[in-house]
Structure formats: structure tokens, C-alpha cells
């Protein structure tokens, strides 16, 4: 086989600005939107359906939206709306809760879809040991029922509930602290 110099045929110049590529938008934002849906309370299987709906509903309006961050915010709004629509019975409290969740998300997850926050959490979880680690592994890692986990660590269900509350608050403080440290570097 002989070798010949390679030259790719020139493409005709484009006269119109490129339209947003829907596939690229899904690829770029799907993880962030899914995490957001999970973080505001959608169970995993519901979150997947809502994720698809979010993109389908949003596609027609995305060309007016603009920057990457604005697209992400628009998708979150759409996702929140779809989630809330399925929970009308939850009323004003749910709306209020979602507003709080949105503010928290914008503060520490919106920029990177939650990557940095998860990394910090991962470090914090590694610091847990003994019963605390056993409880989060069983309850969140293996998704075992609360009664099962309570039996596993020798607690009443109410005791486990309190322990989980304390663990979540502790992890939250640890994550905030780590993100604060990261910001100062």
C-alpha cells in the first residue's frame, strides 16, 4: 500500500450560528440533573423517568437560555416542577422544602453537578468507623430496612433514627468544613 498525503475535504462555511445540540446537552447535564432530583427527594426509579421528561420538556425552550450555568438552572427548574407536579398532595410544606433544597444545591453543587460535594462526603465517610460506619454502610450502602439495621447494631428503631440524624448532621458539618478548607487553599 502506498502512502499519500492526507487532506480532508474542506467543509462549506456555515452562515447561521450553530443550534444547541440536544444530545450534547443531555450528555453534559444528565448526571447533575439526576443528582438534583435525587437530592430533592425523588426515589431512584422515579428520578430516571423524571430525568428523561425534564430534557424532553425543556428542549424546545433551551435555545433561548444561553450559558451552560443558565441551561443547568433551567433544567433544574423544569425537573423541580415535574417532581412537584407528581406530589401536589404534599402541599406548601413540600414547596418550601424544595426552595430550601434548591438554595442549598445552588450554594454547593450547582457549579459541577455535585462532584466536589460528593468527593468531600466520600472523605468524611472514610473517617467514620465502628458502629457509625456500620450503620451508614448497612442503611445507605446496602439499603437495608431500618428495623434490620437497628437489630444489627443492637438499637431500638427510635434509637437508630436518632443516631442516623446525628450522623447526617455530622457528615454535613464535615463536608461544609472540607469545602471551606478547599475554598481557602
Amino acid at each position, binding site marked *: 500500500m502506498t502512502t499519500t498525503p*492526507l487532506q480532508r475535504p474542506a467543509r462549506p462555511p456555515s452562515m447561521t450560528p450553530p443550534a444547541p445540540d440536544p444530545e450534547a446537552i443531555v*450528555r453534559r447535564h444528565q448526571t447533575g440533573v439526576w443528582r438534583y432530583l435525587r437530592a430533592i*427527594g425523588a426515589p431512584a426509579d422515579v428520578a430516571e423517568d423524571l430525568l428523561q421528561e425534564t*430534557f*424532553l420538556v425543556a428542549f424546545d425552550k433551551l435555545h433561548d437560555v444561553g450559558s451552560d450555568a443558565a441551561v443547568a438552572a433551567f433544567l433544574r427548574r423544569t425537573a423541580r416542577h415535574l417532581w412537584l407536579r407528581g406530589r401536589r398532595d404534599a402541599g406548601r410544606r413540600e414547596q418550601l422544602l424544595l*426552595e430550601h433544597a434548591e438554595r442549598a444545591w445552588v450554594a454547593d453543587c450547582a457549579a459541577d453537578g455535585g462532584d466536589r460535594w460528593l468527593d468531600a462526603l466520600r472523605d468524611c465517610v472514610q473517617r467514620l468507623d465502628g458502629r457509625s460506619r456500620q450503620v451508614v454502610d448497612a442503611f445507605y450502602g446496602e439499603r437495608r430496612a431500618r428495623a434490620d439495621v437497628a437489630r444489627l447494631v443492637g438499637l431500638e428503631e427510635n434509637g437508630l433514627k436518632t443516631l442516623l440524624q446525628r450522623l447526617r448532621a455530622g457528615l454535613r458539618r464535615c463536608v461544609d468544613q472540607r469545602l471551606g478548607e478547599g475554598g481557602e487553599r
Partner: protein
Amino acid sequence: MNDEEHIAEGHAEDIAEEVVERRMDWALGEVLGDERAPDVVMAVMTRRAAQLVEAKQVRVTGRGGPLLNAAVLVLGLVVVAWVMFAQRGVGEAGGQDPAPDFVVAATMAELAELPTDTRAVELRDLGNDGFVALAKQCPTLERLRLRGRGPDLRSFDVLGEDGGYGELFEADLTGCSGVQDVFVAKLIQAKTMTSIAIGGTDTSAAVVQFFEMTPQLRRIDFGEAPWLTLTMVEQLLMGGKRVVVRRPDDPTFERHVAELTKRYYRQIDLPYYRPVTTLDELRALPPSVAHIELRDLGDQATLLLAGRERLRGVAYIGDAPDLSEGSMRILGEMSQLEELRIKVPKWSGNGLDHLGALVNLRKLSLLSAGAGPMAWLANLAALREARLGSPCGPDAIGALTRCRDLEVLEIPEVLAGDDELARVGEMAKLRRLRLPGEQCGPQTIAAIGRLERLESLDLSCKRSEVAGRHPMPRLRPLGKLHSLNSLTLRWTEIEPDDLLALPVSLAGLSLTWCSGLDASAGTVLRDRFPRLLTLELNEPEWLDDDALRAILAAPALEHLSITNNSNITTAVVPAIVAAKNLRHLRTWRATFLDDAAAETLRRERPDLEVTLKVW
């Protein structure tokens, strides 16, 4: 009631706690469990396409006002969603089914009016005539759905040996009467065919052998086929085919299929690469072919690839002396590329930095490139899998740490110190890692111990008859890897205590040509790893009858490989017979399997597959 009033009523703390609870439910599920954001690109794009078709049909018919149009659109979505839900079966992630953007032909007259470039058609009750006519009417058909009265083998008498459907990649024959095994076998000969559904047809178990022999087939939907067995399912999964089956009345069967699917998840859902050996073959490929393997082809083939907008993956293998920087430059312009594999002996690797422009590249495999600067890897923001055959220096390792979504990394050769290699610990999403064991010092092992998502780890050393086994640092840090299910330590030397430090989650362990253990390892292997399915123990000088008996009593052990060991006697044969979970015993130069023992196994354990090599 406004926000302030809620706070005044003491709701604020409640709400703040619940916000944290919901977020932790997601985040800890992702950090500790196996929850991951699904890839919905395909599902969304196909549903989007269905929306557009639906909207177009509404506009064309011109009936009704905007409200009716919207209603039809919504109804279309509901139908799509319902079909996707209804078609979902065991062995398949939800929401990935293609949407029904099919054009329906229920009469021969309707069929004759189909545009020749139609790509998805549903034929209703048109039998052989419809099937034959469609191949001629729509030669570029990609997706075919048959309903009602279907065709039989006679249609291929008319269509000829090549079948007539040169670009078909999906056939749904669900519930189609008259469709039998041999018809299906003929249909799947279409070299583009990747997906078929045969539920409710007149097919039998015999059709499975045809599926096994069809490498390009990637997904088979059996519907509720009552003859499908778990053994068949496993064979197909091992061959890289996703199996979808529904047994509403047999949840146990469905659960086993789901477990098998999970076990073989690495093999399935991989795209099929169409092999091409000449430029003419490449020119003749339909534009729908998304993955192409070029064999012994270089720059000229690259030029032909440049115009293929639907190309997603390219592989260069074999001898391609003219593969030059020009090819890399053209590949670098194919921004749609998601996979690239190059395994060309004596390839210089010149121009690799052009590949840094491939922002959508998810899999990169450079198995034969010469060494060179690799900092461009840092630009591959979408990279999920990297396999690099050339020795990797600190620049490559540093660049890879910036690929934040990297899940698979295989670098069998490294030119970096322990502290530099330890940067793999920054790749927090790694699920699969292969590093040269001889380069891994204590810092690297400690760093690997922080990769909580790691599922598979290979720290094999280079085989060396002269230098012997390479002593590994203490493996205690690996004990924190709760997701690790596969560990390979070929040609290493480890301490007996190290086995006790390994995570109990292991399902596969290879201690091939591994030294340093003693006979106590047998009971440790049995007791510490309750999920151990596969164990490789080549040349284990420490293994004696008692140790092997202990191993054979491991509760989940299915595959055992023992070679080159003269310490074991025929006295272990009863323990082999008693190991009811054991399905495959692979031996090589094994003194304990004489003719009488082989006969005993044949008689007592006909289900046990024994591979015996004597050379």
C-alpha cells in the same frame, strides 16, 4: 402562610433536617451503594425523535387546533412511555427501549407508497409478500417490526442468500405467527443486525444456538418464551448478548436472570465492531454502521472514515504501516467519536496529541503506541476508560487525574516512582484498575485503598523466571475496598496475613504463580470470602490435600483452576464430588486426576465440567 410564618411556627428546623436527609439519601447511595446516574442519552433522543414525528404528523394532517395538537403530542408521549414500560423485561435497565417512530403498512398498497429512504417500518399481516416487497421498497431499512401473520423461510427464496435487508439492525417479531427458528437464523445473518425480539413466535429452544453463533447480535428479547433456561441465558450473556425475558409467574427465574446479568455486565452492551479488511468493503458499508474495525488498514481508510457522520467507534488492528500523523489529525476532527482503539505493531504513535480534541471520547485504547508526551490526555473530559500499552510517565498519570469521570484505567507499564504512581488515588471514580505490581510501593497501595468504588484490581507483575516473584507491599489498605469483587496478583509474593486483610466482598481471586502463602491459606480462602466464585491457583506449592479440601468447601465456589501441583493426591476426589456448587475445574499437569478419578467424576458429577491439560 409565608416562609417567615413557617419559621415562626418552628418548621424551619424540621425542613432543614429533611433537606439534609434527602440529600444524604442520594449522596450516600452514590458514595456507598451502587446508585449511579443513568445514561439516558439514547432514550431521550429516541423519544425526542418520536415527539418530532408525532408533531409532524399532526401538522401534516392539519386537523384540530393547537389544543388538539398538544393533546395528540401528549398522548404520543404517554403511548411511548407505556410501550417503554410494557416492553421492559428482566435483564434490562429501564427506559432504554427505542421509541416507536415506525411507519405502519397494513396493506400492500400502503407498503408500495412508502418512501424508499424509510428507516423504520411496521408490517401488519402482510406475510411473505410484504416481507419481500419491503426489502425492495426500502433498501436502507434499519428497523423492522412484524405483527400478525409473518413471513416464513420461503421469502428468502425470493430475496436470495444475502437476505435483502443490508442495513437492518433491529427486528421486532413479537407475537408474529409463522415465524420459526430457521427464518430467524436467516434474518440474523444481516451483518448489521444487533437486536431481535422473538417473544410469542413459533420459535423453539433450538434458535438459541443460532444466536450464539451470531457475533454482531447484542440484544435478544425472548418475551415470555417458556423454553428458555438459565443455562441458555448464561451462555448468551457470556457471549456478550443482553437477554431480556419476562416471567410474571416466576419471580425466582427473573431474579436469577437479573443476578446473571449483573455478573456478566462487563461483557454485555458492548458495541459490535464491523470488521473490514479492504478499502472496497469500507466504501460499501452502510452509513448507519457506527462502529468499524479496520484490519491491516491505515491512512487511506481513515480518509474514507472522515465522511461518516454516524461513526462512533473506530479500531485499527493488525499491520498498518502507513498509519501516520495524518490519520491522527483527521481522527482528531471527528468530534462525535466515542471510542478509539489502536493496536498496530511498530506504530510510531506520531501525532497522538491531535486526539486531545476528541471531547466526546469515552473509551481510549492505545495498545501499541510508542512512548511520547501524553499531557493531551487531560483534554479528554468525557473519558471513562483508558488502556495504554506504552510506558506511562508522570505526565500521563497527572493528565489522567484530570479526567474526572475515569472509571477504567489499565496501564501495564509505568515509568514513574511510587509517589508519582500514587496519584491514581486522585481518580476517585475508578471501578477497574490495572497497574504493574512491581511498580506499586506502599504509597500506591495506600492510594488504591482510597478508591472506594473500585470493583476490579489487577496488580500482576511481569513474568520473570529468573527474578522470581515480586514481593508486594503489605496489602492491608485494600481491606477498605468494600466494592472490590475481583483481585489479580499474578507473579507476586504476598504474606499469609495479607489474605486476611483483603475485603470479604471478593468474588474472583487470581493467585496464579503467587508465592509466600502456606497451607493455612486453604481455610482462610474458605472462611473469609463467602462470595468467592472463581479462584485461580496455578503452581501453588503450598497447596496440599487438606488445604484443597478446605477450598472445595467454600460456599459459593463455581470455578477453580489448579495447575502444576504434585502435592495433591487422589484422596481429594470425594471432596470434589461433594462440592456441589463447583461447575468448572481446570487443571494442568495435575497428578490427582488419574483415569479412575476422572471416571468417578464423570459418574458422580456429570454436571461438572473438567478441563484437563496434560502437556
